[in-house]
């Protein structure tokens, strides 16, 4: 995220200002007109903009009227300058935006997709509603060739719904640094592709899912979440931290009823700022796996086998065994190993057990492995 700082001055202590829809507003050097307008809730429409990426200027929906300019200018790429006079929502602009939305709608097979496709998947549909642009005008060829041959289990590549905003290509390069996908051909025949048009798994793709989450039309979709699209119930999200490595990415876990149906990256997560990797994005369904332990187990003396037990029985069984060890070998004979995968409370309680219960320091965690 960039530049939401305090307005800057021109070096002589005078605040930089421009005029936005007739109102004088302050801005920071380097801010774009779009960013200034966003701060003032102008709700300028756009389809190719992702605040994490370099402005691209492709969709042209964010055009504004700039005094002195012959044509409207794209606000996302135009830096604010002192004294600029900008109008963000004139009748002419709204007509142009509506026509642009009608044009975009005309190149896609679907204008409405299931929200399980991804974080940004409703952006186009919302703008079509806002501009009442489902008119069917400009009918013609559809652009983009879908890739049903790509058998990867994570990323749906349904380019018949692609509008060539290149957010996927740009997020892959600028945010992820993987450069796995690019744009091939020109004009109406542009197509998102890997090297030599192959499958994602044969490319530099790491399946981080960032392309899915920035796609505004559902041309790219989260196949794991989509597999759950018919799970009954409203989708709720719960903010938590990814369970894998030590980077600590913030995620929003999507649930319906008692089932995890998908994961969304948290764009405001302090460690990841919207980024995730293949594990954080897709490796969540161990949680509800049938192999999960659902009851305590204790080892039967006679058979030597583990068998399910109630909590009461298992806790007493364990406490009895531990008390016997203390009796036979002393309190220093018990050792505790805490987990680097469980929360603080687990590790804290384990060391408390050893220290407050046994009075020893025979406690460690798994970091030496």
């Amino acid at each position, binding site marked *: 995220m960039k530049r939401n700082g305090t307005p800057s001055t021109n070096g002589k202590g005078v605040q930089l200002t421009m005029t936005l829809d007739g109102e004088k507003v302050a801005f920071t050097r380097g801010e774009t007109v779009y960013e200034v307008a966003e701060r003032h809730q102008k709700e300028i429409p756009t389809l190719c903009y992702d605040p994490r990426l370099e402005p691209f200027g492709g969709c042209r929906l964010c055009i504004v009227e700039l005094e002195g300019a012959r044509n409207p200018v794209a606000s996302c790429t135009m830096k604010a300058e002192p004294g600029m006079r900008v109008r963000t929502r004139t009748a002419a602009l709204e007509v142009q935006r509506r026509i642009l939305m009608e044009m975009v709608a005309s190149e896609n097979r679907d204008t409405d997709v299931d929200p399980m496709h991804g974080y940004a998947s409703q952006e186009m549909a919302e703008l079509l509603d806002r501009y009442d642009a489902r008119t069917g005008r400009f009918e013609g060829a559809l652009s983009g060739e879908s890739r049903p041959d790509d058998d990867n289990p*994570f990323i749906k590549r349904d380019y018949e719904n692609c509008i060539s905003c290149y957010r996927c290509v740009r997020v892959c390069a600028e945010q992820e*640094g993987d450069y796995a996908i690019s744009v091939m051909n020109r004009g109406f025949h542009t197509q998102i592709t890997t090297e030599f048009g192959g499958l994602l*798994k044969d490319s530099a793709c790491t399946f981080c899912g960032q392309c899915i989450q920035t796609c505004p039309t559902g041309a790219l979709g989260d196949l794991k979440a989509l597999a759950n699209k018919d799970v009954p119930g409203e989708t709720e999200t*719960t*903010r*938590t*931290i990814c369970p894998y*490595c*030590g980077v600590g990415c913030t995620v929003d*876990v999507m649930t319906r009823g008692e*089932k*995890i149906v998908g994961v969304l990256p948290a764009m405001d997560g*302090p460690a990841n700022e919207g980024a*995730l*990797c*293949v*594990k954080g994005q*897709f*490796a969540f369904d*161990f*949680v509800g*796996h049938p192999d999960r*332990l*659902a009851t*305590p187990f*204790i080892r039967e003396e006679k058979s030597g086998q*583990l068998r399910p037990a109630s909590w009461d029985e298992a*806790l007493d069984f*364990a*406490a009895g065994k531990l*008390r016997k060890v203390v009796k036979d*070998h002393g309190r220093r*004979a*018990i*050792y*505790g190993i*805490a*987990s680097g*995968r*469980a*929360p*603080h*409370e687990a*590790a*804290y*309680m*384990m*060391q*408390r*057990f050893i220290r*407050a219960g046994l*009075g020893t*320091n025979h*406690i*460690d*965690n*798994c*970091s*030496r*492995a």
Partner: protein
Amino acid sequence: MSNPLADMDKPDVIFCIGTNMTECHPVAATRLKRALARGAKMIVADPRRIGLAEIADVHLPLRVGSDVSLLLAMAHVIAREGLMDQAFIDARTTQGEDFMEHVAQYTPEWAAEICECDPADIEKAALLYGGADRGAIYYTVGITEHICGVDNVQSLCNLALMTGNLGREGTGVNPMRGQNNIQGAGDAGALPNNYPGFQAVTVPAHQEKFHEAYGRKVDLATGMTKVTALDLCGDGIHAMIINGENTLVTDPDRHHCEHALKSLDCLVVIDIFMTDTAKVADVVFPATAWAETDGVCTNTERRVQRLRAAVPPPGEAKPDWWIVSRLAQRMGWKGFEFESAKEVFNELCSLSPLYAGLDWDRIDRGEYQWPVPTRDHPGTPRLHEEGFENGRGIFKMLEYRDPEETLSDEYPMWLTTGRRLPQYHTRTQTGRSGGIDYLLSEETLEVHPDDIARLGLVDGGWAELSNPRGCLHVKVRATAKSPKGTVFASFAFEDVPVNVLTGGGYDPVTQTAALKACPVALKPVGPPLALGQVGVGARGF
């Protein structure tokens, strides 16, 4: 990490050593890639041509376990060329002069004999790092999982101290922690030498503080490490409580571990799956998993963040803290009547100076990086800005030591181990998540094509990997990612339990196992009769 993750796109020169970050910490690696796109330079020291090496300006393919020699030679070049930050050395360190004298003998040519890197590349790397305004070092267990792990880290500190690359934006000595809460486990006091908040158990004042808090006096002596405890199973240690660790698979020398755990009178395991370790336990308690548990974790940049439950746990699974506190109650102990994770965490905050300014509600948005000593403290994204905790930074006069086991005619190849991007640890989680196997469904041993030819192996065929601790069969993959004479496998797949082979010693200070350098023999074999066959090697010679 001394510096925040947000600093990772700010250095001029990045020095990554022993860290396969694009696979093990992919999201952190994206920040480095952004720094490179902005024009930063990168040095990567790693025996293998890992992903980072592909995009580096200098790749130093050092022989496994030779890091100290390389780092001494880099210090030598920096000193020789006068690239030190003398003001920093004068103001904030001690023994700088001794150190410059010490490294005068360790030329790149000397190091090249040991670490097998081109002396010109060592020179180039040293000039890059030494010449940086903002030089940042990143490392992971490729540095620490050696008998000289502490020496390796201290060598890196020496480089940072001599160039003043600490306590500023885009600098630092930054370990990347491998597990979501490995930092937090230490913060919370699950260490034999420290109470919560890294308060040493040997300090009487600390003992007194916890005596008061817990109502019981704790030994003033440091506890034993896990490694020692495993060695003493059945001989001093007779019971273990293991929470969420698949010790049998992740620890070195599996046969030794198995023997150790089986010789206990009582093994209690708390886990979410029936792991190999759980299978040998006397009692197994079912824990709630991620997304079923409210709690707190601390990431690699010391950021304290909240975990939240989104779904109910299966059956009767319970939070780990609940299980341990209830077990304590059954032991007849008082003071374990906790009813919520919040209560547990707030007690921790009350006892840890690093968390003194925090509580459950304050960390709701994950804004704080410890230390947060008081309520009005904003947290500490960057350590050492004002000074070092213990006064001055001390240069350490280190010398290179060979690994405990070195190559021989019988065991002429190095085995080194690690992770791969799609799978995590022993696959207890990723192996049960749909689709991940599409990306990586089996383990292969990465072998340089020349070694394949020399040893009569076949790309895609099978090989036997052995040493005195054991042997296993594994499919071979030809790749120049491995240097000649070194092979690589991950420990993710149970049918390729590479940790039957590892275990050649421990760091004398931390007792961290030398998992990264292990001499082995390698020969072709036919395809397996059944998957997962594991021979048992004779122990000793």
